[in-house]
């Protein structure tokens, strides 16, 4: 029994230490960890995604697709592959992004009905992803180094302890002028984000509606983006999530853009 006490004590001490250092942790470090936890979970991943777009009149549109992701390194370049299933007019269409941490991303679209491979100019990361309230950058991530972060303290968000971080773009940016993030202290997932425009009016609110642990990795499985100004919102459901499946690098090439890798895409 006596021997057990140091064993119990050590982790407790460690936790206390972590808590102390964390609260003093650099806001930059928190945002980096959050970015890695949210956008770089595992070395690769795949999921079935259902995106529901609701406009201000309550009319719904639904997009269903399979998404593959592969990281070249944690926090480094990434590749994304999207295979659309619904609606009918975009079914079988594929879309590929090579996310470049330095410089512009590369994007390609394949339209099977005309056998057309088309590179897409990726200059405007702030444009909407398939008409939703999410932008391309929301999907593949805005690098933490692009903003200045300020630690605003800790808070309780619906029963979860969170860090509150305020971010301001280093360079003027159309996407937002100011962002407030609420980051889960345990797993560093962003549970809520508020985006403010240049007039400091609230424009969009992101919320992690549901967090599950998948293959040991905490994952936001239901994501929601409210556009407060347009009065529209988009909900994204992730199902059949798998991590570290060993997706080969060449899956993210024109060859597979034209012929989806059926091993992963059904």
């Amino acid at each position, binding site marked *: 029994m006596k021997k057990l006490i140091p064993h119990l004590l050590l982790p407790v001490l460690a936790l206390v230490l972590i808590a102390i250092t964390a609260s003093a942790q650099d806001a930059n470090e928190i945002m980096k960890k959050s970015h890695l936890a949210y956008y770089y979970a595992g070395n690769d991943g795949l999921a079935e995604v259902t995106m529901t777009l609701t406009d201000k009149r309550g*009319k719904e549109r*639904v997009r269903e697709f399979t998404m593959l992701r592969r990281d070249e390194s944690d926090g480094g370049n990434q590749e994304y592959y999207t295979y659309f299933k619904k609606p*009918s007019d975009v079914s079988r269409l594929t879309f590929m992004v090579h996310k470049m941490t330095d410089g512009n991303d590369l994007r390609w679209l394949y339209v099977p009905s*005309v056998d*057309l491979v088309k*590179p897409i*100019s990726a200059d405007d990361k702030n444009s909407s992803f398939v008409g939703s309230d999410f932008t391309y950058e929301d999907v593949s991530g805005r690098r933490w180094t692009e903003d200045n972060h300020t630690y605003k303290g800790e808070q309780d968000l619906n029963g979860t302890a969170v860090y509150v971080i305020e971010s301001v773009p280093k360079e003027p940016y159309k996407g937002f002028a100011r962002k407030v993030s609420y980051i889960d202290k345990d797993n560093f997932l962003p549970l809520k984000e508020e985006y403010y425009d240049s007039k400091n009016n609230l424009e969009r609110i992101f919320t992690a509606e549901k967090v599950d642990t998948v293959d040991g990795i905490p994952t936001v499985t239901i994501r929601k983006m409210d556009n407060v100004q347009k009065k529209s919102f988009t909900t994204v459901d992730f199902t059949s999530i798998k991590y570290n499946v060993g997706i080969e690098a060449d899956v993210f090439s024109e060859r597979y853009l034209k012929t989806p890798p*059926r091993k992963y895409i059904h």
Partner: protein
Amino acid sequence: MNKIAPIVFGLLLLAAVPSRAEVRFDGFVQGLFGGRLDQHNPTSTEETASETRLQLRMEDFGDRSEFFGRLDFLYDGTQDTNQYDWELREAYLKFRLGSNFDFKVGRQILTWGTGDLIFINDVFAKDYRSFFIGRDDQYLKAPQNAIRTEYYNSLGAFSVVWSPRFTPNRLPTGRRLSYYNPMSGEIVGTGTGPQYYFEPAIPPARFKNSELATRFQHQFGAFSFSAYFYRGFYKNPTGFDPNSMSPFFPRLNVYGTSLRGATMGGIVWLEGGYFDSRQDQAGDNPYVPNSSATGMVGFERQVATDLTVNGQWQVDYMTNYDKFKAQQPPGAYVRDEVKHLLTSRVTKQLNMETITLSGFVFYSPSDEDAYVRFSGEYKYTDNLTFMLGGNIFDGKHHSTDFGQFSLNDNIFVKLTYGY
């Protein structure tokens, strides 16, 4: 060769039948109605389109292979007879052999090259009958029966497309859309007389008349380089046989390259090709087109949120131009030695991408002709889409590429229900 090939491929097909049955069906129902804007068009129909279409799509796939089929049923109200029609748009099996070979065998739509509605090395069949009357973009490409083989290694991708039977472009026949007839020197159609129904004979089904299109493609960073070779025929019947007094498809080889990639916040593309007119390499035969060298440069960029603009400039240089010029009958319009074509596309999306406004302009300063396409599309729901559009042609001379269609101006409405 002709007899062995089907057997070999039959065996390959058997080896590659999808292993996991996951059959999926979808498609659409569509109504397209178009009217002409020119009163004196010599065609026999007033409408450019009055059709109801049902498309069925089916796919079945396993880990290493997939089958895909697309079948269209059509009710065509502009016809007096044969109002019901159908076409197998695609039906192919795609499979992989080893880790380097991909095959696509069957009826398929084929596209390559870099241009936006300008085709140099893409010598696959186009359907201008559909393109000019407002059918969906997917109908610009006519299907070809072909075997496509792709080999991938560290150098790049090697593609070989073999079409056993030559597949020509689908051109206006004079029934729904009028065209220029060089014999009569005017724009004609079946409204003038049934003899103006235009459907040239294609080369007989022989092995030597098959089509071969190849490409090598290499990707480096944000750029993609391609080299192409085609052996077959002009896709339009640009030759004339003075004995039978009928047009024909002269033999053609095309050698070309292209480069495309992301730069300057947009996409840039360069493509060139040499059209080697095999039956008139010296330019002596007035009934067969001279060889030509053609090149284009294009750039596309998103200039504002949901607003994309592109521009292209194509230059076409005719070889042995002096001979060509001397062969032309007096009084006929004679094209320039160097022909220029400028195009621009503007696309604007609105209202969460449910509204798409699009315009495309072709303008040739040397031929002095133009073609304008415009459309507005509204996705009322995920399934229901409404479109309004038009096609406007103009030209100073009736014999130029777009001038010949100058009486075919039309506007159309289209309603599509996808399922």
